[in-house]
């Protein structure tokens, strides 16, 4: 009785440790991409490729929503500490974007299941990311009609970058799957 209980706890601990290492590794990748992107000048304020979301997407499809939330949370937190935007308006926008993107990912992923691949999920989460950020920016920071004029441009950018990110994620997932199959 006590022995089986002990084994159960050990299993849980081992799973925990494995998950922790996965989260740490993927989060490190995402943070590196996040910071590389922050270093590049942006053609339009508020527009960046968001390639770090490729990592979130891959983690979601391979390891589920829980780990994806962890990786996104680590990326937003550590990324903002390293770039120097922690607790600034940028940080709040970052959090909003991540929450909106993960919610959309969970919703569409659950409804669509296997019918929807990385590209569809990426586009949905990218548009949700952008919409969430625009809403918060408009409601909290710049309640000016001029911001709304930017919405079509920003959504177009989100759509294009969402497709690109999705294709990257799909290719990476294919490579990973082939490697696993060849093993």
């Amino acid at each position, binding site marked *: 009785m006590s022995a089986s209980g002990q084994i159960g706890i050990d299993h849980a601990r081992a799973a925990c440790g494995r998950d922790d290492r996965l989260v740490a590794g993927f989060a490190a990748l995402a943070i590196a991409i996040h910071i590389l992107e922050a270093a590049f000048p942006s053609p339009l*304020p508020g527009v960046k490729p968001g390639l770090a979301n490729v990592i979130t997407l891959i983690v*979601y*499809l*391979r*390891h*589920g*929503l829980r*780990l*994806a939330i962890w990786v996104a949370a680590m990326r937003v937190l550590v990324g903002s500490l390293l770039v120097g935007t922690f607790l600034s308006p940028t940080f709040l926008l970052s959090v909003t974007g991540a929450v909106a993107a993960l919610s959309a990912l969970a919703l*569409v*992923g*659950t409804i*669509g*299941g*296997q*019918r*929807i*691949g*990385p*590209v*569809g999920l990426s*586009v*949905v989460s990218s*548009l949700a990311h952008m919409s969430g950020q625009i809403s918060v920016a408009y409601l909290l920071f710049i309640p000016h*009609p*001029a911001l*709304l*004029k930017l*919405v*079509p441009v920003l*959504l*177009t950018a989100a*759509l294009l970058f*969402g*497709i690109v990110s*999705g*294709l990257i994620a*799909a*290719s990476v997932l*294919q490579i*990973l*799957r*082939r490697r*696993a*199959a060849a093993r």
Partner: protein
Amino acid sequence: MADPGSEAGSEYPADPRPLIRGGDILILLLAAGLVGASFGAFWGPRGEGETALVTVDRSVLRELSLDQDGVFEIEGRIGLSTVMVDGGRVRFLDSPCPGRYCVHSGWLHRSGEVAACLPNGIVVEVLGGEREFDAINL
């Protein structure tokens, strides 16, 4: 079933699935439609009816149409201010404040222009149409 990630994580199908699946194309079409609609919604022609928004102590009192000329008396914190609409423009005619800065602001007609009588707590702002920036800070 609810979580596709756990299934994909445990078994890897030998034949790679296509990069873009059927559901993806549906989502792409919907997304393109949504983005296209946003152009219509946010860049479409606005109703030309420009108005002057009158606020007293930060609460909106009334919206004056700039098409209808007239003189309006606005009850403020310290007394009556007079606002005049004439030929698509609006101005303070008189106000019970010491400096009369609001009156000296003169006629307002461009969208976004503001005249304020702070002692009386009255702000008049032109709304609608093409809005011009008063400052851009990137």
